[in-house]
């Protein structure tokens, strides 16, 4: 019996791993009398896989059987793969067993669609309900809302879980239709809108009735696959920006496309996932969420794709050199945040520390500013003014060069007797050959 559950878990965890979201943050949920678990606002990661991603939640599919046939999905019905389904009880036992051993922060339940969206959603909802009511579990639950499920079921799920999410996956409607003919944006946006309205309504209600039930208090998130379809970074980021503002999403995740179904001609043939691009998109996402950048400042019609060589903040600064240098001892927080080499923490520290004294270069270095980068963009009555006259292109080259690790020591000047390089022949051999000539 246990062996079977273990096998099922392995299949369903493997099938769920392409969903990148693993956040357990965004909500404080206190434990109740005699209950198990709580949720903390900052979230806690309990382990890290060999690919460097965190394991915070038990991320698993309820089933990897699916009635759909989406080109980008490993679990599409036409794929010949081992299939499994975990029962409600098995999922509850695993979650509690793992949670009590401090393996996880909670459950992230997603699923392939079996029979109908309603049937699938109802069983998922039951897992959350059983955890909360029978097990008195107060840890984190993240659940996927299945597009096409009735709003009543999604509403019930929202009451039990911390976060609900609907994955958009493909960043434009025509491309989605091409790769997943059974899906469209209307079906995806319907539950998303419904969740948004419920979150807002429930928050309002709780202002008047303190004990009114919560509805997905940690908000909703979504995921976009990057590199499977030809959308530009500009399209992706403006979609993300709309989602943050219009749909009030907490997070948008970007997943570099992995060729899981290589045989499908509708998908590009790539060997490795576009990791650098994915990283640049996350950096841009951070700029929008924490650095008060607008999507059209990061990418524009002239620059629809992100620069893979330098990060988007530096790229913006180089395009806007007329706004620099700024004086760290006077400039407002918003402007200090925009300096390459100064992060949120350093910016906050600068604001605090400059109340006490004028900050010089040494102070800034100790506070955590990366001067190697920031020195081209700031003044503090100390730095020579000459570095600010460089044209954008020269500055760019200089910074890229400065980022490269320096060679560890002087290269060996002693000639080698034997060398296996292409250009340098062993000394003795060359002389011999020369003599033969």
């Amino acid at each position: 019996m246990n062996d079977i559950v273990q096998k099922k878990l392995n299949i369903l965890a493997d099938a769920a791993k392409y969903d990148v979201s693993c956040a357990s943050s965004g909500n404080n949920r206190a434990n109740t009398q005699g209950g198990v678990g709580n949720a903390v606002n900052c979230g806690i990661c309990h382990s890290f896989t060999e690919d460097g991603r965190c394991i915070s939640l038990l991320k698993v599919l309820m089933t990897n059987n699916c009635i759909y046939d989406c080109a980008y999905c490993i679990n599409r019905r036409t794929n010949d793969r081992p299939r499994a389904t975990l029962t409600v009880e098995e999922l509850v036992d695993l979650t509690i067993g793992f949670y009590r051993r401090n393996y996880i922060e909670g459950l992230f339940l997603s699923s392939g669609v079996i029979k109908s969206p309603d049937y699938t959603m109802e069983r998922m909802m039951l897992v959350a309900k059983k955890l909360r009511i029978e097990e008195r579990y107060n840890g984190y639950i993240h659940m996927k809302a299945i597009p096409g499920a009735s709003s009543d079921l999604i509403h019930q799920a929202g009451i039990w879980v911390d976060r609900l999410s609907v994955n958009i996956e493909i960043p434009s409607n025509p491309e989605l239709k091409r790769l997943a003919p059974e899906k469209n944006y209307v079906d995806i946006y319907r539950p998303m809108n419904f969740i948004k309205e419920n979150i807002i309504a429930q928050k309002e209600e709780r202002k008047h009735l303190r004990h009114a039930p919560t509805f997905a208090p940690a908000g909703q998130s979504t995921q976009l696959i990057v590199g499977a379809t030809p959308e530009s970074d500009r399209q992706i980021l403006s979609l993300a920006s709309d989602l943050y503002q219009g749909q009030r999403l907490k997070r948008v995740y970007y997943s570099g496309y992995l060729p899981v179904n290589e045989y499908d001609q509708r998908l590009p043939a790539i060997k490795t996932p576009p990791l650098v691009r994915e990283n640049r998109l996350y950096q841009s996402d951070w700029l929008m969420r924490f650095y008060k950048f607008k999507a059209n400042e990061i990418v524009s019609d002239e620059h629809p794709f992100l620069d893979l060589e330098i990060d988007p903040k530096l790229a913006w600064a180089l395009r806007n050199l007329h706004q620099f240098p700024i004086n760290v001892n006077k400039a407002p927080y918003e402007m200090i945040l925009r300096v390459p080499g100064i992060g949120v923490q350093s910016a906050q520290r600068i604001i605090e520390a400059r109340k006490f004294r004028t900050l010089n270069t040494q102070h800034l270095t100790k506070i955590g500013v990366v001067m190697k980068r920031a020195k081209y963009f700031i003044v503090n009555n100390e730095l020579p003014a000459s570095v600010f006259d460089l044209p954008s292109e020269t500055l760019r080259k200089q910074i890229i060069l400065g980022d490269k690790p320096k060679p560890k020591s002087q290269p060996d000047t002693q000639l080698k007797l034997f060398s296996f390089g292409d250009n340098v022949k062993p000394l003795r051999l060359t002389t011999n050959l020369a003599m033969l000539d």
Partner: protein
Amino acid sequence: MLLVYDGTFEGYLSVVFEVYKRKLEPTEITAKEHFQHTMFTSKEEITTDFDHAERVWKGLQQKLKPELNQIPYSAWLSGEKGIEMALLEYIRQAFILPLSVEGNFGDANILTVRKAARRVMREAMRVLQFVRFQCTLDGIYFSAISPEYDVLPLTIKQLQNRFADQNWVVYDLKRDYGFYYNKKTSEEITLADKTFSRSTGAMPANLLQEEEGFYQQAWIGYCKSTTIRERLNPKLQRQHMPKRFWKYLTEKKR
């Protein structure tokens, strides 16, 4: 002048009290166990006085931001060389400055204290992340770990809130003490009879509940299955999960 205290936080606060009371100008403050004889400085040992310590702590609390008021204690826990003097300066400034001392990042002493406190808090967080419970035959969830700093006391409240309805033990192998929680309160314990591995904290299988093996295997299997082979990045893994914790982790068992 060199001041020596008994190595407890109360002892340290008593030193601070004496410094204020007698207007002392110490050049160094050090715990007894780290004290080394010097030739040219005068040395004085300050005895711990709990009333004095409490007065200093209470007075200090009124000057600190509520969300940052544990910084002095955390920084002291780092046990870093010279932290006592930096902390004395932090306390001095807290009492005299019109602005809140926490923000004075331009001052080397304040920065030292804040950075030390941060390191300690991060280590406490790591205990919360990487502690792994094993359910024993008598229904106690047991775990052992050896954090770099003495941070178990900082984690107990959080563990109590979280695992409120189970008996558990967290044990610090390096300092040979731990906490036992009996579903109501937790108390400090030292286990004389070590039935678990002193290096990894692992309990032998015959002392564990039958289902424990299943959950451990399921967890190991889960961690493997959820890895994306095309994206391997062991450096990033080590960065987030330092290798020194691996021997306590169920999923890293061989």
